[in-house]
């Protein structure tokens, strides 16, 4: 390892330097290059969505609506939601880290359908371009949930264009899921049995199932909304004989499982990181793996818990409440197993592990407040208030984004061939954690004392908590900018990364950093169980490890 750091950088051929030029990127079928294409594009949308968030928080600094117009504010939160959900969170981990790692982790040369993989990026870009065009030429003000009949008969903003953007991006998501499922079934290296799969793969498998089964439903819903808006078909609008609750059922049938598209891959990352930095096999491997699948299955059966005050029958509400508690069980099981994995480990506090700790804390709070919302009588009071906003940001930002950042740090040496600056990374992890809690914890209280969501102006008694939240958002913004800066910095100035800087288990670490175009020089044969840290840390093995490259 030491030689690599000192010697002049005579670079081995790898996926990054094999070809040069724009077309070598835009026409690549290498899953690793496509992953980087996604990385650049989702980062772009993350900062757009983040900018909207910042403007929202600035507007809410004072009770009066004074920074922007009411219509502008409504567009800001709508587009914040649409961009963050459909163009950042859903593709983030699967399309970037999943794309990069699924073939590497199972010992494959690429995904099963490399060209479809490229197609899915192009679909994402087309959808993204449509969304950008929509936002630049007037935008949309329906809320990301675009409830009818407001969206079909009342708004005069560009809901159809925004819907079609999401429709196209949805196909990108479906194709990625399809690719993962086929790859995981068909392209595992010899000896890589299902029970030896890294939990990251299990999580992506569960995610892919949701992407394939759920996404078509939102696509159909968007088409129906567009058809009703254009042709005045009576599907949702009661004035035309339609049913507005039908829309909500269809919308949440996808959009609730979509939360699991965001959080499951993140859970996969957390399993990898916790195993590596406590040098242990994950406690209860099969329970953690199966809990991913059961979350994917139960996740499809709880959609109407978004509708407890919408006018559904009391008995329907009972069923959806009890099923929502059922889906909470596997999530709790995961948290207990991760915590138990630490027991008698040999724990290091590198930046990825700090993000994993952060994830555990924030996801626990997010999950527990989900119990509040699933309790029918209490849901009536807190739904559609800032309590809900806080809850789902704890899951989708505290959970999914913490996992994403942890994963980016963990695999950055593999992706870029460079080490990131460790102390900066630890500092950033701390800033993100503090900023996040300062932003969103006050919103739980704000919700319980009654501030409704999507309010452009509010009664003055809510101001103190809003100021705290805005202050936190500023800190959080700094926390998110830091990694972007030092990751970019490290691409040029970072220490060259050894092949396995963390001495981690997993086939991806047996490739060079960065990997060659076809990942493995010869097909690996797996003879060990997942997370074989005992063997890796055994004294004789430890001396061997550096030579292995």
């Amino acid at each position: 390892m030491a030689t690599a750091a000192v010697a002049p950088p005579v670079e081995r051929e790898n996926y990054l330097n094999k070809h040069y030029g724009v077309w070598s990127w835009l026409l690549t079928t290498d899953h690793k290059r496509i992953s980087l294409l996604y990385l650049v594009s989702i980062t772009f949308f993350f900062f757009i969505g983040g900018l909207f968030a910042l403007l929202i928080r600035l507007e809410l600094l004072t009770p009066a609506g004074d920074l922007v117009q009411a219509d502008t504010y409504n567009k800001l939160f709508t587009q914040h939601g649409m961009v963050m959900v459909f163009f950042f969170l859903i593709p983030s981990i699967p399309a970037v880290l999943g794309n990069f790692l699924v073939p590497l982790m199972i010992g494959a040369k690429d995904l099963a359908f490399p060209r479809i993989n490229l197609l899915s990026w192009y679909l994402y870009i087309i959808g993204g371009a449509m969304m950008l065009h929509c936002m630049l030429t007037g935008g949309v003000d329906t809320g990301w949930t675009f409830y009818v009949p407001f969206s079909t008969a009342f708004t005069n903003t560009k809901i159809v264009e925004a819907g079609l953007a999401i429709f196209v991006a949805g196909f990108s998501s479906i194709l990625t899921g399809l690719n993962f499922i086929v790859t995981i079934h068909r392209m595992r290296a010899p000896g890589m049995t299902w029970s030896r799969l890294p939990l990251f793969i299990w999580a992506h498998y569960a995610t892919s199932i949701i992407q394939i089964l759920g996404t078509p439903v939102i696509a159909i819903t968007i088409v129906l909304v567009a058809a009703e808006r254009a042709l005045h078909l009576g599907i949702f609008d009661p004035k035309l004989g339609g049913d507005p609750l039908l829309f909500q059922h269809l919308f949440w049938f996808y959009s609730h499982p979509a939360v699991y598209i965001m959080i499951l891959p993140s859970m996969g990352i957390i399993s990898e990181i916790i195993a590596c930095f406590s040098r242990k096999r994950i406690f209860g491997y099969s329970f953690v793996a199966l809990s991913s699948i059961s979350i994917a299955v139960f996740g499809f059966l709880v959609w109407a818990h978004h509708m407890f005050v919408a006018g559904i029958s009391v008995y329907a509400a009972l069923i959806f409440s009890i099923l929502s508690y059922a889906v909470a069980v596997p999530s709790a099981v995961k948290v207990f197993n991760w915590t138990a994995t630490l027991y008698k480990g040999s724990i290091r506090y590198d930046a990825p592990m700090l993000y994993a700790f952060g994830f555990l804390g924030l996801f626990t709070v997010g999950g527990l407040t989900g119990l509040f919302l699933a309790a029918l009588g209490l849901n009536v009071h807190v739904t559609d208030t800032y309590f809900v906003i806080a809850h789902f940001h704890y899951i989708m930002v505290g959970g999914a984004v913490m996992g994403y950042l942890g994963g980016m740090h963990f695999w950055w040496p593999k992706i870029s061939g460079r080490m990131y600056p460790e102390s900066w990374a630890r500092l950033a992890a701390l800033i993100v954690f503090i900023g996040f809690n300062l932003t969103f914890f006050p919103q739980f209280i704000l919700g319980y004392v009654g501030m409704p969501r999507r309010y452009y102006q509010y009664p003055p008694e809510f101001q103190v908590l809003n100021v705290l939240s805005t202050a936190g958002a500023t800190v959080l913004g700094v926390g998110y900018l830091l990694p972007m800066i030092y990751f970019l910095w490290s691409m040029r100035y970072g220490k060259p990364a050894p092949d396995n800087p963390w001495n981690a288990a997993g086939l991806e670490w047996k490739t060079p950093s960065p990997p060659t175009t076809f990942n493995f020089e010869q097909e690996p044969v797996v003879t060990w169980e997942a997370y074989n840290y005992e063997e890796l840390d055994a004294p004789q093995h430890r001396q061997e490890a550096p030579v292995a490259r």
Partner: protein
Amino acid sequence: MAGNVDALYIFLVILSTLMTGLIFVAIVYFAARYRKQEGVQAEQIDGSTPLELTWTIIPFFVFMVIFLWGAVVYFKEHTPPRDATEVYVVAKQWMWKLEHSEGQREINELHVPVGRDVKLIMTSQDVIHSFFVPAFRMKQDVLPGRYTMAWFRATKPGTYHLFCAEYCGTQHSGMIGDIVVMEPAQYEAWTSGGSTGPLSATGEKVFGELGCSTCHRPDSQGRGPNLQGVFGKPVELADGRTVTADENYVRECILDPGSRRVKGFQPIMPTFQGLVSEEQVNALVAYVKSLSKAAAPATNTAAAASPSNAASGKAR
């Protein structure tokens, strides 16, 4: 109701604090106790089925307790006492129109006496809104094309926020109002001014003006069903089903008479969709209701005079 919701909330806050504390302490303790030391290796533990079962089953039962508790509160929230005073709510972008059954009309303000059960019969003229009074821990979406119901009983005089909680367009955050809870005596003084007579009387007038009374006669000779005493009773339909004649059914019969026609009558009634305002529909519903209360004409006034007691919640 606020007390019930708060009790559940406090229980959940305590439970969550304990759980978060437990996880937090475990993580901090393990992270410190098992920090990497030279020469000390992690001890591999594969897992433990008894432990897995423990932390699957115990949370499950705890969750079931929360579920049941939440369900009980929800049922109470959805069971308005029988003798509750009725207020009709029409929501529109971006205001609340409220009409008491005694006939007072208000905009963005609802005056109620302390201690009285108030049932809200709500509909929207345009998009979905949501009637949210945080102080009463009460919220219900208000939909176009149908009625949704909610109820509350204010226990302390004062002025409370009324918010729209379902995003409804540009002035969503301006669609706010006040619930003014008054001492009964003050309330009596307030009601004595500015009423155009009870809502059911308005409904009776509309009933005549629209010509409903030519077919719906108070005997069995009309071409339409006799509406005396129908409200709240089961009705046999032409397709063999039976429905209860509640507010939503009466509303549907006015606006879409063909869909659930009463057995034994011809489909000759025209739709009144677009011909009557939401306020007129409300008045008609109140009138049809009053036809069933004729037997006990004192109900409304009795409820108004004496603070109703909680036992009536058992009804239905």
